[in-house]
């Protein structure tokens, strides 16, 4: 009796992690107007960075993730400044090809260095703790923390974009990079900063992903697809919409898994396609 509501709750919580994957993509789609095909691979790359930090120093997952944050910011900044910026504004083909090439390089670089084994990071016990909240529903502490983290991330990004001067700069450049350059606001630097922020969201989701799910060097594309679905479902550029999109995919997968474990991924994609056909502009369109 209690199984279905329980599955839905678990699906919602998984949706929080999906929304985290998608948040950075949502930002880069909204600000720089391109889909970074290497987005999922960057999440996996930072997960391996966290894993390496833990193995090298014996530190916990939390400090390792905290160390990864500034590294990811710098990485995102430099990636945008010295690679992506060079092909921005030249049409969609170059940016897709460059991020596509990057995706393949990251995947195979990780395969070469770490091998194909499936990895996981220990969260120090948090991953097994659960809360009983009645009605036969058990909520894992880690999924709950991740879900709340996703909400906090939306609020933080919302605040950053709409309540700070940096946010106004980012939105100005997103509106019209040529005009920004004309009035003395260098769009390349603002884009790079935005990509640095994307990097921070990537590092946070990588930290949570690495203790909650298994990952391997080729796990990036499936993260990209889910993130993309969440962004499109939510409406391009809408952060709260992205959260809702992530939850929809999570719930659809949980319901699919009810039929048969093999239906989990397929159910997520089908839910996306059906809703997308009904509402191509997404649930909360911004542009």
């Amino acid at each position, binding site marked *: 009796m209690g199984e279905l509501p329980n599955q839905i709750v678990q699906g919602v919580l998984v949706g929080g992690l999906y929304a985290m994957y998608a948040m950075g993509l949502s930002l880069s789609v909204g600000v720089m107007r391109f*889909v970074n095909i290497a987005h999922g691979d960057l999440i996996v790359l930072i997960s391996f960075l966290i894993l390496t930090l833990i193995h090298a120093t014996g530190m916990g997952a939390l400090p390792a993730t905290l160390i990864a944050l500034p590294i990811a910011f710098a990485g995102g900044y430099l990636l945008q400044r010295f690679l992506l910026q060079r092909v921005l504004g030249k049409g969609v083909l*170059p940016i*897709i090809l460059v991020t596509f*090439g990057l995706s*393949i*390089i990251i995947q195979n670089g990780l395969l070469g260095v770490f091998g194909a084994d499936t990895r996981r990071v220990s969260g120090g016990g948090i991953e097994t703790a659960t809360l009983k909240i009645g009605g036969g529903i058990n909520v894992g502490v880690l999924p709950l923390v991740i879900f709340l983290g996703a909400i906090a991330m939306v609020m933080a990004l919302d605040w950053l974009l709409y309540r700070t001067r940096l946010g106004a700069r980012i939105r100005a450049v997103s509106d019209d990079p040529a005009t920004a350059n004309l009035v003395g606001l260098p769009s390349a630097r603002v884009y790079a900063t935005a990509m640095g922020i994307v990097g921070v969201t990537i590092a946070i989701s990588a930290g949570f992903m690495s203790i909650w799910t298994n990952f391997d060097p080729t796990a990036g*594309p499936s993260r990209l697809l889910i993130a993309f679905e969440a962004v499109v479902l939510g409406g391009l550029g809408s952060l709260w919409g992205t959260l809702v999109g992530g939850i929809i995919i999570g719930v659809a997968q949980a319901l699919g898994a009810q039929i048969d474990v093999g239906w989990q991924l397929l159910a997520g994609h089908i839910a996306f396609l059906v809703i*997308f056909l009904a509402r191509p502009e997404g649930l909360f369109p911004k542009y």
Partner: protein
Amino acid sequence: MPRQSRLWIVYLARAGLIAGAAVMAAAPMLFATRDVAMLTEFMSLLTIAIMWNLLAGYADIVSVGQHAFVGVGAYALFGFAAIAHVDPYLSIPLAAVVALVVALPVMVIIFRLRTAYLAVGSWVVAETIMLAAGKLAAFGGGSGISLPVSVVRSFGHRIPERYGTIYWIAFAVAALALVATWLLMRSRIGLGLTAMRDNEEGAGVVGVNLIGLRVLCFLWTAPFLGLAGAVITLQKLRVSPPASFSIVDWTVYVIFIVVIGGIGSFEGPIIGTVVFFLIREYLSEIGVWHFIILGALSIAVVLVEPRGLWGLVRRWLPADVIPNSRSRRARE
């Protein structure tokens, strides 16, 4: 030195191309079985590369999901030949028809996404079709199934004979893809496509029907991809979701082939496929690093010479080796 004086190089290259085609047509009589198998793969990849180039290089449809149609062609061939017991030779064109039919709803989905998002959108669709194919019990579910011996035998009882037959089918498909697409490009439609490649906005203004051209190109590629999938299945003798719908083999490699060879040109996919097979022959033992080399090479191409290897060569030549459009404008 004036470029015009190098016209003899163009003629030489054309002669080389024709000679190469003649050798290819006779390949099973000239080469060992192992080489014939490799050339069969070459023809399949060339077919797929020509199609991706048409989409991404001319029609501004940057698909990362064309492995979907290759897989659909593979499964359709199996369905007709092994399950419905249709004549195996007839099953090959039928696979093309199925790919075309599947392309219609796929088009409805991905054409709602603007170009930047279409890439990942097409990937989502391909992933969905692959996962769905894994649910088909008659096709062996997630682990796939082999072609029945009776179907395999209809292409030849002995291995060299069978390899030869399948090669000729692959060669015919590639030749058909090349010639038909070449004729398409020489037609008025090709003129519009070239205008679109050179200046999308301008082409729209002068009355080129952009949506119509995109639809035509997308539907044009599907049956050829289906044919390639059918040929690949005949060669590999089995279908399975990860192999028949392989994103690495039918999309990743193909993008590298076209980008490195030269996107938006007719020579590019051919050069790219040759270069790719050379890299694969000589560098495949270095494992993941050949992917990294391909990835880095294609990024370098985008940054340095977006028209690829052919773009580099073309700067020195006064004309295209394959004159693909009646009014190709100088791009310098």
